């Protein structure tokens, strides 16, 4: 990234240690009939570079919106969003796409692997859609699968994997681009309690060993014990 183009480079030193800084972020949706719904109101949040934050709230509370803004999928209506030292507040659609390729990882609620690709290929999708580093990406995918205990499952299709294994593949996919921040959207909701705990264990281990920050969106309080800190959100308002 050419920093000369970046209007926020003055911010960089101040926020270099932070994986994510949300400063007074508001998100307002205009409904069809003209009235406005505030999904996120004056949110302030910073996440340290190897911190795991649990974001807990009932459905409709704004946690998905927050997650989407942090991940560069949605733009905020006002406020500043800084991820890994980059101010993405005024990024265009195209810049956001490139940003997602480089800086963040996602693990979605419903696992969402590409059904016709093997575990290894599902990791390589990230490279194919983005940088296309080829051999380097293949080495990284093999290494990640090994670390996630899926070395012998690399050539299996998602349909041949268990629920927990699929979630591990999804974690591997999120880590492919060496992100500054990984966003987990209800990572355990489709799993039973025991499997859910195992997956959270893995998440914690992987994040800590890589010194990567994470936000785990959940409505399950039990998950919070695997996180460093819990932030509650209700009706678009954050409470530490």
């Amino acid at each position, binding site marked *: 990234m050419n920093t000369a183009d970046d209007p926020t480079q003055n911010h960089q030193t101040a926020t270099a240690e932070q994986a994510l800084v949300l400063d007074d972020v508001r998100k307002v949706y205009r409904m069809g009939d003209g009235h406005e719904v505030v999904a996120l109101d004056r949110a302030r949040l910073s996440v340290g570079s190897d911190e795991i934050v649990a974001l807990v709230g009932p459905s409709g509370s704004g*946690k*998905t919106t927050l997650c989407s803004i942090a991940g560069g999928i949605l733009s905020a209506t006002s406020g500043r969003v800084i991820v890994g030292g980059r101010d993405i507040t005024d990024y265009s659609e195209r810049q956001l796409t490139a940003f997602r390729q480089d800086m963040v990882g*996602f693990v979605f609620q419903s696992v969402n692997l590409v059904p016709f690709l093997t575990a290894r290929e599902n990791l390589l999708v990230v490279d194919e859609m983005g940088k296309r580093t080829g051999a380097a990406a293949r080495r990284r995918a093999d290494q990640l699968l090994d670390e996630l205990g899926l070395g012998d499952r690399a050539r299996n299709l998602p349909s041949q994997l268990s629920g927990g294994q699929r979630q591990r593949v999804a974690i591997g996919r999120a880590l492919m681009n060496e992100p500054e921040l990984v966003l987990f959207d209800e990572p355990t909701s489709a799993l039973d309690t025991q499997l859910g705990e195992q997956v959270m264990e893995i998440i914690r281990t992987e994040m800590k060993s890589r010194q990567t920050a994470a936000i785990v969106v959940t409505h399950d309080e039990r998950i919070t014990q695997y996180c460093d800190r819990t932030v509650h959100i209700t009706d678009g308002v954050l409470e530490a």
Partner: protein
Amino acid sequence: MRFALRELRRRPGRFATATVILTLIAILLMFLGSLLDGLIRSSTGAIRAQDGDVLVYSDASRASLARSLIDPGVRAEIESVPGVVDTGGVGLVQLGARVPGAGERDLAAVALFGVEIPPAGVPEVPPPGQVYADEVLRSDGIAIGTELLLGPARSPVEVIGFVTDTSFIGQGALWSDAATWREVLEQNRPGARVGDEVFQALLVRGDTDADGLAASIDTATGSTESLSITDAANALPGVEEQQGTFNQIIGVTLVIAVVVIGLFFALITVERTALYGVLKALGAHTSTLFAGLVAQAAVVTLIAAVIAAGALIALDAAIPPGGLPLDVTPERIIVSTVLLLIAAIAGCAFSLRRILKIDPASAIGSGS
């Protein structure tokens, strides 16, 4: 793109319906095209084979040999037009020919041409009573040395050689000298008898461009309609109608291909909405996803085109000579394939908007 192709390999079943329909359409497209080429070829061969620049008809003939007459006076006028180097009379009579050994109601349809300048492929104007025959007549059992009996008068002519691609409106041509033609015409079509030295049309060789020469001949005589060889071939009855009709059918077929491909890939896109949302969230551009779709459509189309080309070549080999006038050429197959590919991409374009509209945010919080 690579993953799109991998999907084709891993799940060929999903694309089977589209491939089968497209193969049918490709066969139809290539079949219609080859049939058109064959029909035009077998209609116009004898005119295209004329070894000159301009064909001159009388002006009321509407470019029909049977209704045209050029008498020696007009011919002399034409020969004095600047730019005219050489002229040769042309006459035609279409008859049934009895072939020795064939059933007595089994006639070969022939077009006997009397010429003064031999057409391409005929070394010289044959002596009276002898003819060069078009290759297509071999399927009627005609060989070198065969004596054909022409028309109800059973006028005899002997085949002394063969020539290719000189059919006239679907009939095999026989090439004779002018006297033989005049005699056969008089014996079999007394109502169409022409005087000595009168021809139906005049082939002109010139030293300027054909269209200009044709115009100056018509101006000089005031009673002729002169056409370049290409125009004369296109002016044959049915040629333009056939081209028009077939090209319309080919056009409709292509539109149908666009609709089928469009619907099929719209279906695939709808099924993949969630997946595309995820890939977009992971940083995939719409262009990357659309390129994958186009790549799949192109591969499916190419497979269909290859199967269709194979089927058509097999069909061509299976059809006995003299049957359907199918002219299967690499050009036609390539042109059909390219048209089909364009139709495939156009069909995919219907899905572009749908892919554009997919919101990466839909990947997050789905179900909540």
